[in-house]
């Protein structure tokens, strides 16, 4: 279904947003390094504090992000086939499922703050709020981009390079929100349990 020059096809299969993704992933690697090195010397405090987090809510949120990612990937496959209506339907499903991540995260934050765990409680919670907060900003940006796609894109022209590139690029960004969480979840919630 793809038309146009080789450069057009390349820009759809491997769009330039990858430059942003690379910079973002490496900056999170730096954040991970900071958190993990700050943990040295106070690992008891970190692990005890981490046990106050709700690993089950974290699990549910991980499953939500994975499912949202899968739905967005299905939307991209539909768009590549030239099925604009199908792509829009999968994107709507992804938005519906993924909105639960935000609701759960906000509930988690308010429950933690209600129980007296704020960013100034100790170093663990400083970094917990920093990492999950920066990730949450990415989540908000990704959700806004998905919603903007669904309402602003002309899905009848999905075979055109510029329209398809939008769907692929936003999809890649959305998968990155998932990708980063796959490291943040074990780092903050799971490994302290062992």
């Amino acid at each position, binding site marked *: 279904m793809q038309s146009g020059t080789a*450069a057009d096809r390349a820009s759809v299969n491997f769009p*330039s947003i990858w430059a*942003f993704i690379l*910079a*973002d992933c490496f*900056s999170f690697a730096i954040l991970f390094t900071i958190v993990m090195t700050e943990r040295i010397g106070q690992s008891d405090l970190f692990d005890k504090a981490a046990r106050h987090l709700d690993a089950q809510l974290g699990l549910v949120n991980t499953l939500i992000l994975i499912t949202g990612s899968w739905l967005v990937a299905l939307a991209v496959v539909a768009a590549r086939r030239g099925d604009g209506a199908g792509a829009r339907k999968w994107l709507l499903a992804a938005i519906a499922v993924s909105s639960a991540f935000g609701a759960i995260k906000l509930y988690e934050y308010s429950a933690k703050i209600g129980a007296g765990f704020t960013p100034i409680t100790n*170093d663990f919670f400083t970094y917990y709020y920093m990492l999950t907060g920066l990730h949450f900003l990415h989540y908000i940006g990704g959700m806004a981009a998905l919603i903007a796609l669904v309402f602003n894109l002309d899905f009848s022209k999905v075979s055109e390079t510029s329209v398809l590139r939008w769907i692929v690029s936003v999809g890649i960004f959305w998968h990155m929100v998932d990708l980063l969480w796959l490291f943040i979840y074990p780092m903050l919630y799971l490994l302290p349990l062992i």
Partner: protein
Amino acid sequence: MTERDPYRYMGVLAWSGPIFLLGAILGWAVLGHNLPPYSPARSPEEFLEFIQTNQYQIQLGMIIMMTVAPLYLMWGYAVTRIMQKADAYNDIMATLQLWGAGFTMLVFFVPCGLWIGVTFRADSMDAASLRFMFDTAWMFFDTGFSPVTMQFCAFGVCFLSDPREVPLMPRWVSWLGIWVGISFFVFMLMPFFKEGPLARDGMLMFWIEFSLFFWFLVIACVYVFKAIGKLKAEHAASGAVAA
């Protein structure tokens, strides 16, 4: 051709970027003793000794920084002119970028003025008040990130919409601009920390976040020169056709 050259002053504007960078590094960073900045965790007395020891160097450094600050606006105007060519039908992002550059210039002006004030009265004011003024300038400097975020995001968004086969600004530079601009949101955390990686002299705040501004500016300066070259070639080609 020469008297109707639309790029006549562009070289001056483009060179103000690198000259600004040199002035900022020499004045603000080296002479100003900001590599890394003075730790906010030290006592007022230690701070006073630091200021009194380095008084004249810091004063000179900040005077240089204030003097070169308008060059940042001039460079921003070069970028805006290129942006107007990248998207010929809509100059909203180009205008926003220029305003972003202009207000970022104020972020260099106001704190440096305060820091000169601190050194000016270092012999007669009490240490705690001096340190308070020094800290306040830092709040403007780091927490005042939003104009430059607006500037870099407008830069990236506009150049990404360039319809040319080979865009005036490489797409990775545009994305990098957007990413650097957004990553400055981390500065929102700076006022909450006096030590550690999130304090103003910390590994994350200074060596990564703050230095990103300079690294991106170096890259953007290089590609501004290249973009002007491309535009001049385009202009010459269209002139040849017209003739």
